[in-house]
């Protein structure tokens, strides 16, 4: 990840109400990609994200 790129993680609460929350990972945030999960650190918090599937796409 370079200083000009970022990752944006959309968390969907369900298909019916379409609510979502977004975490923006920036230049100084850490990220590691595992086989089934993505691990990232935001500030003081270490978090794990389990994707739906291979839905990575560039905007």
């Amino acid at each position: 990840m370079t200083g000009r790129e970022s990752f944006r993680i959309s968390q969907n609460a369900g298909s019916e109400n379409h609510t979502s929350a977004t975490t923006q990972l920036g230049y100084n945030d850490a990220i590691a990609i595992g086989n089934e999960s993505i691990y990232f650190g935001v500030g003081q918090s270490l978090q794990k994200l389990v994707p739906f599937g291979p839905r990575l796409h560039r905007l």
Partner: protein
Amino acid sequence: MPAQDVESDKILRLYDFNDDGSVGRSLITTIWQLTPTTLVFGCYPAGIYISDVRQPSTIVQRGVIPRPPSSDQATPLCIRSRSVEADNFIVCGRFPSVLSYDLRAGLSVCGSVYSGAESLSSMTPVGRDRVIVGGSYRGNSAFL
């Protein structure tokens, strides 16, 4: 700004420094997955931690990166596996050396290679005994 979207319905908080009463402000600076169940992550100002992802909020081991006299800090910026052996990994950061760890000996430095740089921000192993690192040498970016 280029961005990538990742859709998910599950985000788990594995660990938070606010929850364990840590003194001072620790900021996670780098993460590496050693094995499917083991994460190693580094923090400002000089922390290094091993976490078992099967047990949220569990830090298995914690250590402090020794600050060399020539550096103002010892913040880790990049962690990589050293070999196929899951116990070995290397760390670089805001200090001039690449540090090697062997978890069989605990979270203490078991070897180091001095680079001559002021700071090393990124690296990748090449083969069994070599590593390419990038960092800052006298204020300029450089590959070493």
